[in-house]
């Protein structure tokens, strides 16, 4: 089937899309609708939906997709942390993911939680990961097929990863504090109001328990949304370079830490910087503002101070 072009308009759209992908530093991590449709029955591909709306998967999902929930499946249930190595292996086994399975993530909110899942899978060293450009809303807007049928999967083998790679793509509070003191690049991807300290939660969201509004001293403000088009797809490499390289002055080999409130929006930015622009040393501070803003004895900055 891969040698047979899809019908007219779709093929033209796919060529244009591929040109966009080809310009990225790592085009292999993005797929479009045509790619998904070609691989719906591919036993080496597992499509994973990950959302903020906890019931959205149940209302209909891409045929064959499994649901991985950021809270239930990716986080430890008693410690503010991610699952450990054995938990990750068990998650993969029950979702039909082997070590060599290509995992394609997509979800709501312009792929916030899809990028978060991508980041967690990367923490455990899973190699073949891709994101559906535009996520769930774009798929639905293109009239992509949906089903309520939940795939019935036999458990498959997945070796327990040797370690969680916290030291490579994750920044803890002490790392971020040292980063800020060393005046290294910090990217705050929250809304302008959250960055300035005017509000302590993002627009349209409940207060998530933070005592002070503001940002980490020295951080650049660059909301995650600047990297996404209105249809939820990623902006072109040229546009992204203007935002992060020309606008913020970041360089490819910079040591960068991104943060938001709980690490999901900054996963989106981590993905953009690492895979679309090719930055080599980007970490996500998942403790983010709900940790920093509440920490005793830690300085913050407010824009209008």
């Amino acid at each position, binding site marked *: 089937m891969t040698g047979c072009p899809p019908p007219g308009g779709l093929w033209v759209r796919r060529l244009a899309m591929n040109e966009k992908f080809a310009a990225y530093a790592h085009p292999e991590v993005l797929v479009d609708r045509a790619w998904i449709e070609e691989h719906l029955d591919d036993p080496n591909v597992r499509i994973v939906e990950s959302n903020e709306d906890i019931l959205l998967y*149940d209302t209909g999902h891409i045929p064959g997709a499994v649901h991985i929930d950021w809270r239930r499946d990716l986080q430890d249930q008693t410690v503010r942390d991610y699952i450990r190595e054995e938990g990750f292996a068990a998650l993969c086994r029950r979702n039909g993911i082997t070590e060599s399975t290509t995992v394609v993530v997509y979800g709501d909110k312009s792929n916030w939680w899809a990028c978060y899942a991508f980041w967690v899978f990367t923490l455990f060293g899973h190699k073949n990961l891709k994101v559906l450009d535009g996520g769930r809303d774009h798929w639905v807007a293109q009239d992509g097929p949906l089903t309520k049928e939940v795939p019935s999967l036999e458990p498959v083998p997945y070796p327990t990863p040797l370690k969680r790679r916290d030291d490579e793509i994750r920044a803890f509070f002490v790392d971020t504090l040292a980063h800020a003191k060393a005046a290294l690049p910090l990217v705050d991807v929250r809304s302008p109001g959250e960055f300035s300290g005017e509000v302590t939660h993002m627009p349209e969201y409940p207060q998530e328990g933070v005592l002070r509004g503001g940002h980490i001293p020295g951080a650049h403000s660059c909301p995650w949304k600047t990297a996404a088009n209105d249809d939820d797809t990623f902006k072109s490499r040229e546009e992204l370079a203007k935002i992060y390289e020309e606008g913020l002055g970041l360089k490819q080999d910079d040591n960068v830490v991104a943060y938001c409130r709980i690490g999901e929006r900054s996963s989106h930015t981590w993905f953009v910087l690492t895979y679309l622009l090719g930055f080599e040393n980007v970490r996500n501070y998942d403790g983010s503002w709900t940790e920093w803003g509440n920490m005793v004895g830690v300085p913050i900055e407010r824009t209008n101070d």
Partner: protein
Amino acid sequence: MNAFPEKLEEIIELFEHLPETERREMLISFSENTRQHEPREGETFDLEDVRKDDECTDEVGVFLNIDDQGGAHFRVKLGPKVQTLTRAMTAILCQGLDGSSPQALQEVPQDFVPRIVGSELVRLRSQTVYYVLTRMKSACAVYLKRERAAI
């Protein structure tokens, strides 16, 4: 005396006895029925309140009619980005509160929500399930204030 209107109490009891899988299916079913509770062509209302607040992800329109016996009837229109749980709760409230008086509606406590939604689905970012009830109460309060002012 029940703390909740009778129709709402029936829905709460129905959900409380459902296993988790069926509870989810029932919530999805309610969420898919939201359109039945939207205003219909040519309908007029005693009060219309359409707006988008910081607490909700999209526009929510609450439309209130009071019948001759003083019973409240709601229609609600939700924007496409409103979360599934909030959609489900909207349909539940339109059905469960139908015919209650505006005075009684203002007294409805919100602690029934976890009894319907269940502990597994209650999380911080699902708090907008409370939002539509707040908007309905607010519409009733405005209606009653106008009524008092007219006397």
